[in-house]
């Protein structure tokens, strides 16, 4: 009962922290908008006389002191209104959200590849550190880390699209609408379009995760309980998978979850190479055309993803790890 109450307190405190970070992000976004943006351009375009501007400024309350405007921005944010895009003349949040499925499916595809390969490869490198295969995997992972993600994409396109003509190089292909979610996972064309971008994105995360799995496994394999399990007669694969891997997953989830920012950056690069119509592609278009409201909304949304992942990682680690004591006072 006491542990439960402590769990609730932790939960509430963690959510509180997350809310505070979001508030900070929104205030920064507001500051960027005020410093760089011109709200009147959102409404009436560029060619307006000085007098008209002043009149409109006053009517819209844009000459109000900044605390009032900040309060208005935050109030809008709570209701999902983060401003209107210069380019599209539509609410920015709706535009960013419409691009979210594309980025999400790309990350999903890449994560599947990473998960499928990094866990076996990492375990193998940890249990057979001197084997030729392990050295080969680690050598290849240096190679993978050394090739920038956009070059991997370009090389893959050169081979599979330009030379062999097997796979498409640009865009998402045919998509299907499921309610609000536009998915490319249900058509053959959509899946074919996903292969190269997902491979590209996974190429940069894979070496990192192989090393993480290997490191975490090596840590666990050195512990006494592994020796005990072996002494009791458990087979080596059983010790690796049921004992060591289970304990290795925790630090792995924690470190892996913290890579979300890096993942977003690499997604942005991948989307640029493949002209993948996701959020990163949208962001760069907004940057080129100086669409400040769209830029800040993207940043707020990315900040939100970041905060959600970090909070989840914390809560999940807490639930999975019996050793983390909630009652700090005990």
């Amino acid at each position: 009962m006491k542990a439960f109450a402590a769990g609730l307190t932790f939960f509430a405190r963690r959510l509180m922290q997350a809310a505070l970070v979001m508030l900070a992000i929104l205030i920064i976004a507001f500051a960027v908008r005020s410093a760089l943006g011109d709200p009147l351009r959102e409404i009436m375009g560029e060619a307006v006389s000085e007098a008209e501007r002043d009149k409109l400024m006053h009517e819209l309350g844009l000459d109000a002191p900044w605390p009032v405007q900040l309060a208005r921005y935050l109030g809008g944010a709570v209701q999902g209104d983060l401003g209107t895009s210069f380019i599209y003349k539509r609410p920015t949040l709706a535009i960013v959200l419409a691009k979210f499925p594309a980025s999400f499916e790309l990350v999903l595809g890449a994560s599947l590849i990473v998960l499928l390969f990094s866990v076996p490869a990492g375990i193998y490198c940890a249990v057979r550190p001197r084997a030729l295969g392990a050295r080969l995997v680690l050598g290849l992972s240096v190679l993978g880390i050394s090739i920038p993600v956009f070059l991997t994409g370009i090389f893959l396109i050169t081979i599979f699209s330009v030379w062999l003509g097997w796979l498409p190089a640009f865009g998402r292909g045919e998509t299907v609408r499921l309610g609000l979610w536009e998915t490319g996972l249900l058509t053959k064309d959509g899946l074919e379009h996903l292969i190269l971008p997902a491979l590209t994105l996974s190429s940069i995360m894979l070496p990192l995760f192989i090393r993480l799995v290997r490191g975490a496994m090596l840590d666990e394999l050195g512990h006494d309980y592994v020796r005990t399990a072996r002494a009791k007669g458990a087979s080596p694969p059983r010790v690796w998978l049921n004992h060591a891997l289970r304990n290795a997953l925790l630090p792995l989830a924690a470190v892996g979850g913290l890579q979300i920012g890096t993942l977003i950056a690499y997604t942005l690069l991948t989307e640029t190479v493949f002209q993948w119509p996701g959020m990163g592609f949208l962001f760069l278009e907004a940057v080129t055309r100086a669409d400040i409201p769209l830029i800040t909304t993207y940043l707020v949304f990315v900040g939100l993803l970041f905060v959600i992942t970090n909070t989840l990682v914390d809560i999940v680690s807490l639930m999975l790890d019996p050793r983390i004591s909630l009652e700090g006072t005990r």
Partner: protein
Amino acid sequence: MSGDAIRMRGSALIAFAAESPGAAVAAIVLAVITLAALLAPLIATQDPFDLASFDVLDATLPPVWLDGSDPRFLLGTDAQGRDLLSTILYGTRISLTVGVLAVLIQAAIGVPLGLIAGYAGGRLDTIVSRAADIQLSLSTLMMAIIALALFRAGLGGESLSRYAVPLLVIVIGLAEWPYFARTARAATQVEAAKDYVRAGRALGATSFALMARHILPNISSPLIVVATTQVAGAIMAEAALSFLGLGMPVTKPSLGTLIRSGYDLMFAGAWWVTVIPGLVLVAVLISVNVLGDALRDGLDPRGTTR
């Protein structure tokens, strides 16, 4: 004393080359590329930053081993008729310069902070360590993208082009100091407990003198390892930013810019404008990383956690 140290390090280097031939090859590749980049004005057949020295009529000529090439351009030309070899030499120069300068900034911030945190401990240590954690959790590449994107959106592509080199150096330099701080802190904690530091303190040496003259030289090995991996990271970050159009302009291209501008030509058949600078970039990055790994094994037998 210092002569001995140098000789020892020299013989260690030879032993290390014999032990890991891969690292020796990497060192040679890196040395050749660096030398070629440094001597670019002497080797290059034209100045790619000087609009008058090339002609758009020479645009997208292939390298000499392909049909339709021009012997004046060993590796062919890009979309503006620039000699690709010359442009790559100058581009490598920019990439390496930005990478090394950015790492110098990282070290200039991180090493003193790590030294002080490790030496003083207590609250100072907590503050520095927390700041490092927060900074690292924010993904440095994403931070750099955001900073340069806001600069570009706010002040326009023109000003971004003009101040690209200092901006890239500062943005990449400010982002990754925690790696130096962490390493310096951990190593300082080990050194600070040793007798020579206590003896120095007993003899009346100031904390500053102890840190700068006694501890710093003794923690230089792990710092050199970090510096190597960081240079690779910084060069890659610069290339990524330039590829996104947030770094070096087309008129003064780095390797990343060249790859980007060539990418637009790839489907027209002019693959060399992208692929050749790409290979040079990969060669630099692999060499630096292989060298870093070998240095880590050679200088730090216990292995670091990174």
